[in-house]
């Protein structure tokens, strides 16, 4: 039955409408739009394996949030945690360190929270302000000038000089979810421009039950962004808020009786570009997160044991000062930089009748250098080195010095591009795993905990012709000192392990408006266990016919087994149609997880798996002015 359904879908997908390929002015303007995409200016091949999601792609798939784009990722793919936040998982793995993925809005790192992760907000980041997205894998490039990671997701906001106007968008689904956003961007003089964006949305999710307790995950979210550019000065402000039901919560037997998570993240970022590619950046980040979880079966709270009412308020303040400069000659590009960050964390916890209250401060000093040398016009060598100095103000935590080292080679042979990287990096330990003022709650800390240290060996080949693009990538990742949590010993470093991942993809562009992509991926652990789908793939088709745009995607993930629960193969079909009533007024309809056979995640303590994405039908209206 599943095979028959899949064949039907594939047949629908590969039926494309070929556009007239005339060289008239309409065609020239459309070609100019595609070829002038801002990603062609911002993307950097030397920073790793890069995948681009253009404005055109995102508009045609009627993407609302970053989670909609993450659905197209291969390695890692998207899942959701027991408290309804976004989670990344590599094939076969249970989870991946949250600090391995960093998310930037323009040049601002928005992952700098107490948990060293943007996971609490990243899935709910809305995209109408975003021009394009670059995803760098096997990266750890110091050129991003920030804290270590192996995956970097860069979101670039729209350029006001290309907007000179605004847009209003209203969407809703059959379950009562709503999404309203609007932006305006303009140049006021040739050297002053601004872009302002706002969004509010409410997501209604399917409700599940366990032992009579409802498992809810509705959420209310808001995003604000404002950017002003004056000559060589940029000032940006960002605000993200997400309030969500507890979903499964944190109880031993998954019997949530109440609670919520409420996170607010704001930042202000100043950039001054001087002559000769010298740049100064300064920023302040404020993170405020309140989590309350209630569960009759008990929630683990470190030395306080199991409690029924668990509350944590976390407040982060991060002050950053970044300086960098690039020296360029005909065949060489030398990038040097450094930053100082002061991080201040306050945690208040109430666990039934017990409470904890602690502060932690540290300074992070970083110096980095990256050299890109063109041995020939078709051969580039890359050498990166970064030194990080962690200085904790709490005497009990030992200061740490860490480093990142990276070597790369890019070779172009006619239509073929080969890339190889050797990267030695580390994943930072969240402050909450190191320090809790002696109470060892809510988690048993370990002040001697070492950072996890991945070493990546990556090889990629890309073949690009006029209308075709093929990619093959393989990475071998060795992880020293992986961090584990043991309810008796707390955070501990585990034994060295390794992971291998493969990705292959092929894209055929029929013309400017019609393209087909097929990809597949596989990941294998050292112990060959499969705690999540070990392989999967997508078929993605973009079509246009007259005033209609179509987007279809089938996301396949293989069967797997975890906590003794067998999960069948998943087939998540997303389909959208957009009608251009005029150039500026569009109507759309989008179906998500149409077959209701999308990916299901297994959770500890729950006897059945739960869908990461619900079956939904969205209606969408957009007006540009």
């Amino acid at each position: 039955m599943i095979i028959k359904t899949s064949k039907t879908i594939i047949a629908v997908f590969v039926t494309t409408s070929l556009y007239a390929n005339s060289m008239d002015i309409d065609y020239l303007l459309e070609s100019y739009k595609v070829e002038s995409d801002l990603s062609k200016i911002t993307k950097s091949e030397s920073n790793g394996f890069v995948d681009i999601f253009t404005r055109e792609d995102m508009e045609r798939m009627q993407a609302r949030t970053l989670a909609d784009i993450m659905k197209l990722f291969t390695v890692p793919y998207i899942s959701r945690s027991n408290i309804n936040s976004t989670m990344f998982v590599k094939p076969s793995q249970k989870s991946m360190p949250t600090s391995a993925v960093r998310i930037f809005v323009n040049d601002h790192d928005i992952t700098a929270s107490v948990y060293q992760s943007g996971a609490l907000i990243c899935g709910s980041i809305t995209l109408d302000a975003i021009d394009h997205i670059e995803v760098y894998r096997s990266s750890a490039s110091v050129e991003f000038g920030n804290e270590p990671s192996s995956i970097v997701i860069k979101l670039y906001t729209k350029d006001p000089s290309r907007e000179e106007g605004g847009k209003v968008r209203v969407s809703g689904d059959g379950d009562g979810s709503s999404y309203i956003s609007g932006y305006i961007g303009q140049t006021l003089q040739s050297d002053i421009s601004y872009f302002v964006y706002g969004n509010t949305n409410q997501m209604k999710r399917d409700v599940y039950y366990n032992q009579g307790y409802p498992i809810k995950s509705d959420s209310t979210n808001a995003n604000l962004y404002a950017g002003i550019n004056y000559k060589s000065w940029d000032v940006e402000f960002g605000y993200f808020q997400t309030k969500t039901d507890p979903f499964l919560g944190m109880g031993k037997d998954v019997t949530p009786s109440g609670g919520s998570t409420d996170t607010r993240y704001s930042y202000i970022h100043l950039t001054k570009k001087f002559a000769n590619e010298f740049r100064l950046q300064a920023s302040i980040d404020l993170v405020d997160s309140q989590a309350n979880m209630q569960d009759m079966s008990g929630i683990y709270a470190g030395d306080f044991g199991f409690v029924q009412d668990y509350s944590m308020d976390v407040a982060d303040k991060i002050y950053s000062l970044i300086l960098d400069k690039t020296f360029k000659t005909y065949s060489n590009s030398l990038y040097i930089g450094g930053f100082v960050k002061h991080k201040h964390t306050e945690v208040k916890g109430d666990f039934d009748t017990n409470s904890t209250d602690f502060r932690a401060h540290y300074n992070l000093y970083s110096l980095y250098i990256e050299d890109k040398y063109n041995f020939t016009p078709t051969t580039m060598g890359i050498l990166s080195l970064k030194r990080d100095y962690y200085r904790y103000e709490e005497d009990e935590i030992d200061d740490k010095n860490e480093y990142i080292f990276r070597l790369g080679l890019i070779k172009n042979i006619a239509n073929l591009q080969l890339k190889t990287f050797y990267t030695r990096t580390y994943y930072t330990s969240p402050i909450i795993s190191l320090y809790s003022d002696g109470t060892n709650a809510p988690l048993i800390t370990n002040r001697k905990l070492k950072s996890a240290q991945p070493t990546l060996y990556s090889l990629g080949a890309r073949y690009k012709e006029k209308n075709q693009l093929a990619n093959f990538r393989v990475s071998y990742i060795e992880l020293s000192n992986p961090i584990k949590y043991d309810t008796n010993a707390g955070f501990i470093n585990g034994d060295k392990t390794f992971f291998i991942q493969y990705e292959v993809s092929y894209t055929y562009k029929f013309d400017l408006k019609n393209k087909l992509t097929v990809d597949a991926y596989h990941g294998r652990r050292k112990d060959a266990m499969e705690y999540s789908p070990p392989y999967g793939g997508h078929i993605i088709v973009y079509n246009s016919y007259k005033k209609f745009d179509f987007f279809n995607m089938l996301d396949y993930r293989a069967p797997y087994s975890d906590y003794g629960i067998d999960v069948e193969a998943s087939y998540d079909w997303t389909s959208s149609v957009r009608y251009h009533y005029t150039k500026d007024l569009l109507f759309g309809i989008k179906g998500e997880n149409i077959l209701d056979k999308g990916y299901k995640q297994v959770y500890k303590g729950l006897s059945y798996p739960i869908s990461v994405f619900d079956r939904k039908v969205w209606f969408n209206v957009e007006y540009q002015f």
Partner: protein
Amino acid sequence: MSSALEIEKGIYKTILEALFPSKSIVKVWSDEVSKNPLFASIEGVRVVQNKKDADILMLFHTYDIQKSDQAVFANGYLVLQRNKGNAVGGFYWQKGRPNLVFVKNKLQERGITLPKKLQSYIEDIE
């Protein structure tokens, strides 16, 4: 697929041929020096250094050009808005897409009849 620069060249070639159908050489002056190589590479176009020698003034960042004998073409949204009284047309980014417009009354003033393929780009701009 051609590069953005080659396509831009094709767009300007189409515009200039439409505005000056009978001229074998169109003399172009631009307020953006970095664009001169692009215009110079178009067959049948000569870049001139003096405005007075030009058939058309290509404006990228001049907001208040005085009325002149030469045709004025705006290459930015704000440039077109600020030179509405003079510009014969504009090629600029707006709403995230490249736009091409020709101003009806300015075409009429100069007695220009655009080829059929470009007539859908004629607008009344006051």
